[in-house]
């Protein structure tokens, strides 16, 4: 039964929808409500998420220490070479800087750090306070570019100037300034860029291998395991593949406009979406490379042949279990809904930090009646729906984990901090394994919510037997 509860604030009612109950018209992309304990971060967070994995660039956070220190090496983005991205650099603004302006300090910091680390480029992130004191990042960066001979790029990511999506755009704008600078002469006509994958737990390496087997050259990873030089010549690729709904779509659009590079939106999560992504690419190149479709089919067949029997084993245990998920970008949610179907599981709650109206409409289409769809949720709402729907597994990030655990519900980290590769066919198997170990552990029997329910059921059975 539907509970109307005080856990949902009046002002947030139009950000929640149930599939099947009328046309979907979710309010989204608005500022988080004061006092609502949103799970969302800020513009800076959005920029940091996108640019962070560029491993040979210096990432300098211009602001007081917090913004930099909370983002120090917390993500699972791996690099096959340099690891500059795993260090946390900050101008660590002090009171005098706030009063007199931080430009001098910023210039000195860049001077010091660029000499120390010889990066291929530097990204300078502005934070809330920099927006207020009005430092001219653009000017400082321009001078530094001249002085050091590497691109020094401002990222206009003042935290309060919108939400995470605005940060994605700021990051794309900064990266776009790199593109078009490199030599593209020896790039194959059958070539792509991988956009919007962050190489969490080495996922991009799995995906790149598929493309290599298909005979497709990957020019640049944007941004997982990313390199400045690759990005500078990525306009030479024939096609952009954009994964995830928000993060790098803006960049693809800019490239289409400026360089005419077409793009396709893809997903590497789950079986259908992974296969479909590969087929889309094969289809795109089939006139140039007649054998590519067959090669792709063979690849998919081979991978599925390995995967399916193993999946079936997990499915036996998981059949019928219920899932809630709260993700950053809603595009990921589409793939996950499908992936869970392969495990015989049903998604009953799905929320996102940054979904758009179109995203939510699509979610309403692919989910079963009664599924709760929710924009910009908070702990009380999430726990409310987890209980109402009595879910078995919750998919989210670190902030969501204790909510699940306190309710005696299994949890799968599907966020930027994950240490398990969940993309590709191999990732699907890891995913199944992780969901299995999340849902099937005997510990849930002892979690009070479940334990008490089991006791009640036992008593009811006893009573029935006595009658």
């Amino acid at each position, binding site marked *: 039964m539907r509970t109307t509860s*005080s*856990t949902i*604030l009046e002002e947030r009612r139009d950000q929640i929808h149930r599939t099947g109950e009328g046309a979907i018209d979710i309010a989204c992309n608005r*500022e*988080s*409500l*004061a*006092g*609502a*304990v*949103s*799970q*969302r*971060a*800020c513009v*800076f967070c959005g920029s940091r998420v996108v640019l962070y994995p560029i491993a040979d660039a210096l990432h*300098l956070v211009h*602001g*007081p*220490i*917090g*913004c*930099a*220190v*909370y983002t120090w*090496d917390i993500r699972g983005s791996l690099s096959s070479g340099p690891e500059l991205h*795993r260090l*946390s*650099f*900050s101008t*660590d603004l*002090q*009171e005098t800087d*706030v009063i007199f302006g931080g430009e001098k300090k910023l210039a000195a*910091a860049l001077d010091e*750090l660029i000499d120390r680390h010889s990066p291929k480029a530097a990204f300078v992130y502005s934070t*809330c*306070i920099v*927006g*207020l004191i009005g430092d001219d990042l653009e000017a400082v960066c321009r001078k530094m570019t001249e002085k050091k001979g590497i691109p020094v790029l401002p990222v206009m990511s003042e*935290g*309060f100037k*919108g939400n995470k999506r605005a940060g994605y755009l700021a990051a794309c704008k900064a990266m776009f300034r790199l593109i078009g600078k490199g030599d593209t002469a020896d790039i194959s006509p059958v070539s792509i860029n991988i956009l919007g994958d962050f190489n969490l737990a080495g996922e991009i390496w799995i995906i790149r291998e598929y493309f290599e087997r298909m005979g497709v050259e990957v020019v640049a990873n944007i941004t997982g395991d990313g390199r400045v030089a690759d990005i500078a010549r990525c306009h030479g690729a024939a096609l952009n593949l954009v994964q995830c709904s928000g993060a790098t779509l803006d960049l693809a659009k800019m490239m289409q406009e400026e360089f005419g590079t077409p793009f396709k939106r893809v997903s590497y999560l789950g079986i259908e979406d992974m296969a479909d992504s590969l087929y889309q690419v094969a289809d795109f190149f089939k006139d140039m490379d007649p054998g590519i479709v067959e090669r792709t089919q063979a690849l998919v067949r081979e991978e599925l042949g390995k995967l399916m029997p193993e999946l079936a084993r997990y499915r036996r245990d998981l059949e019928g279990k219920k899932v809630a998920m709260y993700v950053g970008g809603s595009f990921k949610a589409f793939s996950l809904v499908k992936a869970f179907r392969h495990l015989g599981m049903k998604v009953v709650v799905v929320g996102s930090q940054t979904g758009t109206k179109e995203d939510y409409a699509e979610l309403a289409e692919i989910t079963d009646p009664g599924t709760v769809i929710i924009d910009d949720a908070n*702990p*009380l709402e999430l*726990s409310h729906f987890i*209980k109402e729907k009595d879910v078995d597994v919750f998919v989210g*990030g*670190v*902030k969501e*984990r*204790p*909510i699940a*655990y*306190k*309710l*005696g519900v299994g949890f799968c980290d599907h966020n930027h901090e994950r240490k398990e590769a969940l993309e590709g066919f191999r990732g699907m198997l890891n995913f199944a394994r992780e969901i299995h170990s999340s849902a099937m552990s005997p510990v849930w029997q*002892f979690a009070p*919510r479940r334990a*008490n329910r089991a006791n009640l059921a036992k008593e009811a059975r006893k009573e029935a037997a006595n009658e």
Partner: protein
Amino acid sequence: MSKVKTARPNFVSTTNACKLCTPLGASLAFRGVEGAIPFLHGSQGCATYMRRYIISHFREPVDIASSALGEKNAIYGGGPNLKKGILNVMKKYEPKLIGVATTCLTETIGDDVPMYFGEFYKEFGDLDLPELVRVSTPSYNGTHMDGWHGAVRSMVEQLCLEKAPATGRVNILPSLVSCEDVRHLRDICDHFGIEATILPDISETLDGPALEDYVKIPEGGTPIGDIKTMSGSRATIEFGRCLPAKSGGASLEERFGIPNHRLGLPMGLRESDRFFETLEDISGKAMPRRYELERGRLVDAYVDGHKYIFGKRAVVYGEEDLVVGLCAFLSEIGVDVVLAGTGARNKGLEKAIAKVTDGVARIAPEVREAVDFHDIAAEAGELAPDLLVGHSKGYRYAKAWNVPLVRVGFPIHDRFGGQRTLTLGYKGTQALFDRVVNAVIEKKQADSPIGYGYI
């Protein structure tokens, strides 16, 4: 000869900071009060980042509200959002206290929180309002420890307003220690027959049991009524040799004449002795036998283990007072602290360390304030440490130098159970001692081609 260099002459940028920002400390302190919810007055990102960071250590839900300021608010002031946010938190969480900490943003635009509070009381005085406590926490002016101490003092000053009738209780201001440490402190007081008001008390609120339901605000924490009557206590004990002059304990002493005992964190034998002696003085009771025994066992262990660790060289880093406590402990057991660093500045770290290591340390450590891990690494290279002692963030360096890291403090992000790590008193020192000795033995085993199974 003084070896301290407080600020680097070339201080420009920070690489891998050895400190956290001010409102985080305030949020943690507010979390240790019954029915309280921390509230950051600023933009949404700060609150979310801090929640994430704190959750990774405690593995507990950590709800921190935010006034979620946007661009307009940043220009026209955050008052309306602050009030709306407080109302929303009241509606959803029904808190007994809302602890409002400012962020860099609202400090810089000069938002006048006391004035907003005044307006709020006027507008909504007819509602059943929670206690509202405010603390000013610009991060460009301090670290998370300043936020912590500031929040504690704010609570004492804004809740404890008049002289209460004598309660016979003792106030304990424990500083940022683990949940297990707080539980241990409470036990000790119990055994001395002392009723203690521990402020804040995170022992349950940040290390709660599994429950039937998701509770909006976890149970436990210092009861607000107890805070209000701290002015009637017998004495205050506050831990920290690097505390600001204006601390919670100092405020109670100044305003109500409650004797304030400022002690170092009871880590190591001598600092623990000071704590237990103080409890004997205050309670008029001799040390309970169980602590005599704990102390005796600790000395026994010191003797049994001394050879494994004598002359080992340790690098210690973290919160200023934790660093002091660790130096007190390590120098007692014959470990040479070669470098002691904190990200905070102007805390009198060198003096405090000199005091607690006097008579036992074989060398005076290099003492550094305002350091980051880049600086620590730069110096530690030459210092050739055998051991790192501090929070998780030193892991990369320990790995690079192939030396063990004994994890203490906040955050512990790469091990399980940081919130249950005991470090205080004889028992905590014992636990720490065992870990240090074992870390050295383990390293010796790992490095040995022979593989001694008996050491």
